[in-house]
C-alpha cells in the first residue's frame, strides 16, 4: 500500500514539474492540497487526477503522504519558483494554493524545505519568494505547531517499532534544532542588509520562546489529564539556543512566566524540571547559569531543577565545583540562588556543608590567595558570606570547630596581603563567621574601612525574602515602561530651584565674604620654629600641640634662619609624633610639614630619613611615611620655584586699582588716548607674557641622597624588618618610591646611573611571589625606560634591555593579575617604540 501512495506522490510531483499552463498547475496543487488536509474532513471527494488511487482509503492515503512525501513536495514546489512559473499563478492564486500548502502541511517538513531552499538559492527571485514564505510561516505561528508535533510524536507512534522511529526522530530532531536555533544567523548571512525584522534575534527568539511556552502549556494540560507526552525536543532546543548565545533573550521571556506557573501548580514543576534536566549535557552549563541568575528567589530554584543535583553527576559537578571554584560572576543573585538551592532542602543539605567547607578551605589557602584574581576573590567572599547566612543551629554546633580551624589560617594570610580590599574582605568574613558560628565565644573584631563593597558584602548576610509574584510581573512590565519614561524624563525641563533660594535671591542684603570664619583655638599659633618644635614635643598639651602642628608647614616654608641646623631634629620630632589626641587633619598636616622640611633642607632631611628607614623600633606606618615624604619632596624639588608669579600679578593689577580708586576727574588727554586705543588695531604686540626665566633644577644635586641609601640594606632581613620576607607591603612602596625619585630626576646627570642601579635592583624582584611587588617592578621598569636616554639604553644597557623585553613579554602572556598585565603591555609598547625610533635615527644618521 505504501508503494501506491508513493506512486501517487510521484505522480503529483511529476505533474507539477511538467504542467505548462495555469489550469494544470492548479489541478495538481489541488491534488496536493487534498493529500495534506487534516484527516476527518470526509465530505470532500478524491480529486479527479488521483482517480486511480480510489481503492486506497483516503485517510491512510493522507496520513502516509504527510508523513513521508510532504517534504519532497515542498522541495519540488520551491524549486519551481521562477518568474515564469509564478506568472502562471496570477493574483491571489499563489497564496491560495502554494501558501496554504506550506501553512497547513506538516510544519517540520515545510520548515526544513524552506530552510534548505534559502540556503541553496542564495540570491535572486527564488530567494525573495522563499523568504516571503518563511516569513509568513513564522508570523502565522507555525513554529508552535512544529514544536508541538515533536512533543506528540513519541506518543502517537505508540508501542510499535518505537526504537527504530526514535532513531529516525533523533536525526530529524537534530536537523530541526539546528535549523530553529541558527535561523537568525543564517537569514542574516543570506539576506545581508535586506534582512527582515522577523528574523532578527531580538524578535525571533522571543517569538520562539512564546511558542515554547505555549507548547509547555499544552504538555501541562495533557499531563493533568494523565496522558503522556515527550519534552525531550523542547529540552534540546532550549539547550541549543542557550548554547548559541540566545540565553538572555530566551530566558527573559520564559522565566517570569514559568515562575508564576511553577508556584501555582506541582505539574508545572515537573514540566520545568523535565525541560531543564533533559538538556543535553554539553549545553547544561549555558542553560543553568543564566537560569540561576534570573530566578528571583532562591526557594524557587528547586521548582526548576528539582533534586537533579543528587541524581545527576554532571549537574552536581557543575553546581558544587565548577560554578563555585572555577568560574566567577558579577551577579550576586546567581550565588544566592545556587547556595540557597543547596541549603534549602534536607536532601541537598550535605552538599551545602561540603561546599561551605571547601569554599573556606580554598579561601584560606595562602597560595590560592596569591594566584586568584581580584574578581574571583570577591566572588569567593560573597559565596562564603551567603553560606554563613544559611547555616543552621545544629550545624553550628557540629561544624563549629571544623570551620574555625579552617578560618584561622585564612585570616592570617588575608591580613598579610598587600591589597587593602583583600585585607578588609578577609576581616569581614572572619568577623561574620565567628559572630554567627560562635556568638558566645571569642569574637574577632576588626576596624574595617567602610567602603561600598564592604557594605554590599554585609548585606548578603540577610537572607533574601520572598519577592512575591507581583514583583515578577512588575519587573516584566517595568522593563517595557522604563525606556519610555527615561526618554520622557529627559525631555522634561528641570524644576526651578527650591523656594528658599529664590526668597534669598530677591533679598537685597548681599552677604559679605565669610570664608575666614574658622574655629578659634585657645592657644596662639607659635611664631618661631623653635617654639613650634617645643609645642610638638608636648603632646600632652593638646591645644598647643594642635596649634604647633597647624603652624609648622607655614613656618618651615617661610625659611626661617637656622632651619638647616635643626632640620634633622625637627624631622625626628615629626616622624615620631603619633596621633594621640584626635587632632583633625593630623596625618595630612604632619605629612605636609615633613614634605616642606624635606624640600627646604633636602640633604639633611634625606640623610636622616633614609638612615631611619632601616632602623629598628619603627612601625610599618612610619616606614611608609618616610617613603611617601621622600617621593613627595622629590616631586616638589624637581618643579621650578615660582616666586615671580606674585610680582607679575601685582604689577598687572596695580594700574586698574589706581584708576578705580582715583576720584579726580580724568584729564582730556587720558580720555582721548583711551578712545584712540579702543579704535586702533595693533598687530604683533610682542610677547603678552614675560619670557619664562630658567632656574636651576634643585633636585639634581640631591637626587642621589634620596635614592641610593634607600637600597642599602634591603636584603639584610633583620628580625624586626624583613623586606624580602613578610614586609612585602613596604617593599612594593619602596620600589614605587625609588621609581618616583628616578622619574623626578629626569634630565639630570645622575639619572643614568640611578636608572642602571634601579634596573639591577628590580631584576631580582621580577619573580616575587606578591602581586603588588611584581606590579611595582613593572611600573619601575617603565619609568626606567621613560627616564633614561634611548641611545644609552640601547648601547650601554643593551643586554639588560633585551632581557627586560623578554621578561615583559612573558608577563603579558602569563601573569594572573589583570592590572599587572596591562601595565606590562604598556611598558612593552614603550620599549618597542623606543627601539623603533632609535633604529630610525641610526638609519637617518648613516
Amino acid at each position, binding site marked *: 500500500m505504501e508503494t501506491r501512495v508513493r506512486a501517487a506522490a510521484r505522480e503529483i510531483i511529476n505533474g507539477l514539474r511538467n504542467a505548462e499552463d495555469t489550469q494544470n498547475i492548479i489541478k495538481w496543487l489541488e491534488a496536493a492540497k487534498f493529500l495534506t488536509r487534516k484527516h476527518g474532513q470526509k465530505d470532500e471527494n478524491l480529486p479527479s487526477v488521483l482517480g486511480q488511487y480510489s481503492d486506497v482509503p483516503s485517510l491512510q492515503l493522507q496520513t502516509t503522504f504527510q508523513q513521508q512525501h510532504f517534504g519532497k513536495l515542498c522541495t519540488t514546489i520551491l524549486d519551481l519558483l521562477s518568474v515564469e512559473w509564478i506568472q502562471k499563478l496570477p493574483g491571489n492564486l499563489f497564496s491560495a494554493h502554494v501558501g496554504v500548502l506550506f501553512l497547513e502541511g506538516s510544519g517540520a517538513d515545510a520548515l526544513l524545505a524552506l530552510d534548505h531552499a534559502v540556503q541553496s538559492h542564495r540570491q535572486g527571485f527564488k530567494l525573495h519568494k522563499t523568504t516571503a514564505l518563511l516569513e509568513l510561516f513564522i508570523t502565522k505561528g507555525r513554529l508552535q505547531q512544529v514544536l508541538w508535533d515533536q512533543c506528540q510524536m513519541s506518543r502517537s507512534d505508540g508501542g510499535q517499532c518505537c526504537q527504530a522511529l526514535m532513531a529516525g526522530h533523533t536525526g530529524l530532531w537534530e536537523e530541526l534544532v539546528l535549523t530553529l536555533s541558527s535561523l537568525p544567523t543564517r537569514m542574516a548571512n543570506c539576506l545581508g542588509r535586506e534582512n527582515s525584522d522577523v528574523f532578527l534575534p531580538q524578535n525571533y527568539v522571543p517569538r520562539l520562546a512564546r511558542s515554547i511556552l505555549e507548547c509547555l502549556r499544552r504538555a501541562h494540560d495533557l499531563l493533568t489529564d494523565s496522558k503522556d507526552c515527550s519534552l525531550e525536543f523542547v529540552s534540546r532546543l532550549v539547550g541549543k539556543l542557550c548554547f548559541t548565545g540566545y540565553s538572555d533573550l530566551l530566558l527573559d521571556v520564559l522565566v517570569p512566566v514559568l515562575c508564576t506557573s511553577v508556584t501555582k501548580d506541582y505539574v508545572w514543576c515537573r514540566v520545568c524540571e523535565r525541560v531543564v534536566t533533559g538538556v543535553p549535557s554539553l549545553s547544561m552549563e549555558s542553560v543553568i547559569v543564566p537560569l540561576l541568575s534570573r530566578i528571583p528567589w532562591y526557594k524557587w530554584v528547586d521548582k526548576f531543577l528539582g533534586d537533579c543535583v543528587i541524581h545527576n553527576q554532571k549537574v552536581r559537578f557543575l553546581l558544587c565545583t565548577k560554578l563555585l571554584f572555577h568560574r566567577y560572576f558579577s551577579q550576586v543573585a546567581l550565588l544566592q540562588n545556587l547556595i540557597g538551592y543547596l541549603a534549602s532542602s534536607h536532601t541537598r543539605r550535605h552538599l551545602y556543608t561540603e561546599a561551605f567547607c571547601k569554599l573556606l578551605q580554598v579561601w584560606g589557602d595562602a597560595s590560592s590567595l596569591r594566584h586568584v584574581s581580584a574578581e574571583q576573590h570577591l566572588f569567593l567572599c560573597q559565596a562564603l558570606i551567603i553560606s554563613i547566612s544559611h547555616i543552621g543551629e545544629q550545624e553550628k554546633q557540629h561544624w563549629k570547630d571544623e570551620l574555625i580551624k579552617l578560618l584561622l589560617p585564612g585570616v592570617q594570610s588575608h591580613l598579610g596581603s598587600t591589597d587593602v580590599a583583600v585585607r578588609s574582605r578577609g576581616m569581614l568574613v572572619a568577623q561574620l563567621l565567628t559572630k554567627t558560628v560562635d556568638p558566645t565565644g571569642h569574637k574577632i573584631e576588626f576596624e574595617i574601612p567602610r567602603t561600598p563593597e564592604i557594605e554590599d558584602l554585609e548585606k548578603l548576610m540577610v537572607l533574601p525574602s520572598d519577592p512575591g509574584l507581583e514583583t515578577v510581573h512588575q519587573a516584566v512590565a517595568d522593563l517595557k515602561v522604563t525606556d519610555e519614561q527615561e526618554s520622557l524624563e529627559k525631555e522634561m*525641563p*528641570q*524644576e*526651578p*530651584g527650591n523656594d*528658599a*533660594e*529664590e*526668597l*534669598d*535671591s530677591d*533679598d*537685597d*542684603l*548681599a*552677604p*559679605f*565674604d*565669610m570664608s*575666614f*570664619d*574658622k*574655629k*578659634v583655638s585657645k592657644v596662639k599659633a607659635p611664631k618661631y620654629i623653635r617654639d613650634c618644635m617645643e609645642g610638638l614635643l608636648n603632646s600632652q598639651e593638646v591645644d598647643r600641640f594642635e596649634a604647633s602642628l597647624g603652624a609648622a608647614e607655614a613656618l618651615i616654608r617661610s625659611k626661617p634662619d637656622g632651619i638647616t641646623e635643626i632640620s634633622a631634629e625637627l624631622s625626628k620630632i615629626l616622624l615620631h609624633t603619633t596621633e594621640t589626641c584626635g587632632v583633625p587633619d593630623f596625618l595630612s598636616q604632619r605629612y605636609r610639614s615633613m614634605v616642606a622640611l624635606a624640600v627646604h633642607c633636602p640633604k639633611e632631611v634625606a640623610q636622616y630619613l633614609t638612615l631611619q628607614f632601616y632602623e629598628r623600633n619603627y612601625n610599618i606606618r612610619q616606614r611608609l611615611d618616610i617613603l611617601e615624604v621622600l617621593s613627595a619632596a622629590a616631586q616638589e624639588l624637581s618643579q621650578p620655584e615660582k616666586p615671580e608669579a606674585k610680582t607679575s600679578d601685582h604689577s598687572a593689577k596695580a594700574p586698574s586699582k589706581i584708576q578705580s580708586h582715583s576720584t579726580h576727574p580724568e584729564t582730556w588727554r587720558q580720555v582721548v588716548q583711551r578712545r584712540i586705543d579702543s579704535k586702533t588695531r595693533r598687530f604683533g604686540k610682542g610677547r603678552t607674557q614675560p619670557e619664562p626665566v630658567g632656574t636651576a633644577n634643585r633636585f639634581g644635586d640631591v637626587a642621589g641622597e634620596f635614592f641610593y641609601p634607600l637600597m642599602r640594606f634591603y636584603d639584610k632581613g633583620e628580625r624586626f624588618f624583613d623586606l624580602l620576607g613578610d614586609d612585602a607591603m613596604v617593599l612594593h612602596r619602596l620600589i614605587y618610591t625609588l621609581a618616583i625619585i628616578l622619574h623626578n630626576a629626569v634630565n639630570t646627570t645622575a639619572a643614568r646611573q640611578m636608572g642602571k642601579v634601579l634596573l639591577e635592583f628590580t631584576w631580582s624582584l621580577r619573580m616575587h611571589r606578591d602581586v603588588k611587588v611584581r606590579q611595582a617592578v613593572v611600573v619601575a621598569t617603565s619609568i626606567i625606560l621613560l627616564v633614561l636616554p634611548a641611545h644609552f639604553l640601547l648601547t650601554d644597557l643593551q643586554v639588560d634591555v633585551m632581557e627586560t623585553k623578554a621578561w615583559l613579554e612573558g608577563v603579558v602572556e602569563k601573569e594572573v593579575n589583570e592590572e599587572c598585565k596591562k601595565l606590562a603591555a604598556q611598558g612593552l609598547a614603550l620599549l618597542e617604540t623606543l627601539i623603533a625610533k632609535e633604529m630610525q635615527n641610526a638609519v637617518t644618521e648613516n
Partner: protein
Amino acid sequence: MAGVVPNKSIKTDGSKEPLPPPSPTYILRGAESPVTALEYTEPALGTLLSGCQNGTIHLWDLNSRRNEETFDAHNGKPVLYLKSEDASRLLMSHGRDGYFKFWKNVGPEFELDGKIEAEGDGFCPPVPLKQKKLTRLIALPGSDSVVNIFELNSRSLVRTLSSGASSGELGLCMCMCAIPNLAGNDESLLVGYESGKMILWDIGTGKIQHQAPVHADAVMCMAYSSPEFNKGLSGSVDEMLVAWSITEDGEIQTVNKLESTNAGFNDVKIRPDDRIAVTAGWDNNIRVFNMKSLRPLAILAYHRDSVHCVEFSENYMLAAGSKDHLISVWDIYRQV
C-alpha cells in the same frame, strides 16, 4: 520652557563675588577695662555712653571720637546696663554692685539722683517695661531666680516674679526681654534662666504664661523683634542660636536653630527695622544675620578678645564693646 528663566537668574546670582569682609568705621580707645555696656544718646547729640567692668561710665563724643567724661558709677563693679533719657539729661545705670542708679546731668558732670537696691548681684541687665496704667516700670533681677518689678517714678516695688520652685531648679536669672503685645495691652516679660529654661511672665497677674526649655545650658542673651515680625533670638554657651516666636496663645515656640562656627554668645540685638540681627560672640567676632532667612550675612572681625555688648543707634550705626577695652563702630547695611 518656563523653567529656564529662573534658572538663569539663579546662575547670575551665584556667580557674583561676595563682598570683601567689612572693616570698622572707627574705633574708640581709652577705656581702662573691658567694655560691658553701651548706650547711644539721641543722634542730635552725637554721644555714646559706655560702661566698663571696673564700674566706670564713659561719655564719648562721636564727632571728635574722644572720651569727654569719665566717672565711677558702681564702686568698681561691672556696669550691666545704661539708659539715657530726656536728651541725655537723665541717665539710668545698673551694675553688679546690686544698685540701679539714677543720674542727673549737671553741666559736664553727672550727679547721683537716687538708687534702687535690687538685692541681686548676678549678670542680668534690667529691662524697662511699658504698661497701660503705670507707664514706667523696670524689671530688676533679684536674688537667685527672682525678678522684681519696680515703678520708676515712685521707685517702689510693685511685683515679684517667683516661680515658687526651688532656686536650684531654674538657676540664676540670666537675661530678660520685654514682649510687646500686638493688641497694645500690657507687655509681658520673657526671662531666660541658668538652666536653659525660658519663662514668659504676665506682669499684670505675676503668673507664668508659658515656659519652655529652649537651651541646654544657661541662656546668655536674647532679643525680640517687633510684635508684627514676631521673631526672637537667644544665644547660649554653645554654638546654637535659637530663633523662636510667641504664638497667639502666648506660648514660646522654637522656629529654627542656627549653628555658628564657634561657641558662646554674650549679646544679641535685632535692629529696630527687623532686617538684621547681630550677635556678640566669645570668638571675638560680631556676626550679622538676615532676620528674614536667618542666614549669616557677615562676620565683623576686629576685636582681639571676646565681644561683650552690641548696640544700634537710631540711625542704625552699630557699636560693639569688647573685653580688649575697645569700642568699634560699624556702618553696615544702613543704605538698604
